[in-house]
């Protein structure tokens, strides 16, 4: 089952096969978690967000339109959940990308100055900019896929991505 395409797995889920959904979860849990983490900045919250997003996708699977790629649809749900999560946070609560936590395995890597600066710079980006940076660079999605996920025109995705990069450049290299 692990090799089955998303489309087949979704069809199996719709017929009531929960194992097929489990396969989909295993297939996408890391990229979804990564995206959630990038937006909410806390590993525990990111886990919750990812879990909720998977639950929602399961509940609403009948509404999934197979014109779109399954993972695009999942990303859409995760991004929405993560943004909602941020809105529910108290104002001015610290928002640090990859906050070190007990289970955070990359704590050790935080010592790397370059990586740390980059994390800080991403953290300080406006939310919409952060999302496009994550989808493009972490998930390597195309402009079109990002446009589907964010429900934006491709040209808006491009311009938002460019603005985000310029802002990152300014923050990192001061130019």
């Amino acid at each position, binding site marked *: 089952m692990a090799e089955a395409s998303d489309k087949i797995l979704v069809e199996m889920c719709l017929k009531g096969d929960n194992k097929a959904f489990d396969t989909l979860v295993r297939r996408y849990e890391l990229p979804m978690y990564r995206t959630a983490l990038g937006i909410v900045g806390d590993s525990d919250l990111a886990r919750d967000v990812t879990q909720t997003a*998977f639950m929602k996708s399961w*509940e*609403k699977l009948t509404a999934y339109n197979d014109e779109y790629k399954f993972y695009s649809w999942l990303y*859409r749900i995760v991004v929405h959940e993560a943004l909602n999560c941020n809105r529910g946070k108290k*104002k001015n609560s610290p928002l640090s990308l990859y906050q070190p936590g007990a289970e955070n395995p990359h704590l050790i890597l935080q010592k790397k100055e370059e*990586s740390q600066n980059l994390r800080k710079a991403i953290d300080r980006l406006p939310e919409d900019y952060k999302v496009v940076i994550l989808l493009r660079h972490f998930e390597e999605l195309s402009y079109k896929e990002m446009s589907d996920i964010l*429900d934006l025109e491709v040209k808006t995705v491009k311009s938002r991505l460019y603005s985000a990069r310029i802002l990152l450049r300014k923050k990192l290299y001061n130019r």
Partner: protein
Amino acid sequence: MKQEITELIQAEIDGENSPEQSREVQNILKNNPEAEKLYNDLREISENLVKLKNEIELAEPLSANLKNDLHEATGADKRTTTKTIHKIKKEEVMPDSKTFFSGKKAAYFAAIAAVALLVVFVTTDFPQPNTSDVTGTIGTDGVERAERYRATQITSADVILEDQHYQEILQSDVFQRLAASGELQELANNPAFIELAQHSAFPELANNPAFFELARDASFIELSASPAFMELANHPSFARMRNSAEFAELARDASFLELARHSSFTELARNADFLELSRNANFAELAANPSFAELARLFPFAELARNASFFEVAANPSFAELARNTRAFEVFANPEFTELASNPAFLEMARSSSIAELANNASFVDLANRFSFPDLAANPAFAELARNSSFLELARNASFVEMARSSSFAELARNASFAEMARNSSFVDLAANPAFAELARDSRFMELARNSSFLELAANPSFMELARNDSFMRMAANPAFAELAANPAFAELARNSSFMEVAANPAFTELASNASFAELARNTSFAELAANPAFLELANNPSFVTMMNSPAFFELMNSGRFSMPLAR
């Protein structure tokens, strides 16, 4: 840099270019150092992001937990029968963030808040404010329409609420508190609210799942019951708005509801100044500008907008006029600008009453509306300059504004060396000097000012000091001096502090304004002399400075007997 170049560079980094476009990019990079720098920076950021991505791991798989959750939530293997599967709407899953805070929608925010409260309050048998007992009286079997309240306005067929949402709202602390205080009753008795609830868009809105999300928001409920909001609801312009076709459209827009839940926005909307502003016709027009949405979406703007002074500015007719300019909006929506706007110094400046005065200045508005200004303002160096509190003072100066309207000035201002110079607080003083403005309007001076040697010279603090001197200004207006000052050797000389000391001497400036001196300065030998290390060494010698400062020496130089032979 041209937009088409930046687009090509970005697409190259993202691997979205055709082979032909990739070749074009390579050609551009060979011939355009600025583009090459941009490409290299973006490429490096991209590579580092990939490294960062690889550092992220999921400590423990989610799949095991999820399996349990799914079983708990729905019962094993009964996924499709245990719950009603909603027809998912695109916006239910992901809001259209481009419409976030957009245009007229922002102006209608208050209306939605009113509806949010009404849908909870008017359509239920929520107890009257008998403050002795406000808890535990809420029905649990779904939604029943309120008989006591305007039974003819909304029918149960119109409003079908999902009880789980409904109960959450009714049981929220905020709702309970407001109900106990009587604020909700007061609101619901408000004729404006009643009218609002009769709006044709209301039933549809009430059935929108996103609306319930909004209605659950504590700050929203609180906002709706605030006295300032009540006042707004009774305002004639509000009545016009809620009866408009746009409102009906808005009420159906899930993204607007999403917007209204944004914490920054609700905080902003609770601000009494915002309510005052929202009544202003200029603001309504401003809010209708699509670019405003892009601007408003950015967090730093929200921060800026929470500043009371901002409202003063925004309510100003001149500002509205400026803000209606699409090009200006492009600037405002620029990340550099929003970053600037979130700078404490900028906010400090924005709080200053002077900014309203500035925005009222017709010349400034005219300047800002000019094509060149938005480009200039989008320049990071300019943003840095604008953070300088003295800049505001300068910008109010009529002479400066007059000068700044010149297209050559805009060109000059985009020059990195100029920006460097302009960051110097003394420059602001200098630029505010009417004599400087007069000089700066002269096309020859502009030509000089574009010369990097001159800019380098002008960035010298001692030069600034000197330049504030009226006599120096007179000298600078001399075409010969301009010619001289454009000479790199002169810049070299002028960087010498001793020279500055000499040049600050009124006698020297008088001399320098002298036709003979001008004649001398034009002479290439003089430039050569000035560039000579030995001469510079001499100029550094205190005795030389003393000599130069001596009245007798100036007398000699002014006589023409000294300079003319040298010029030959």
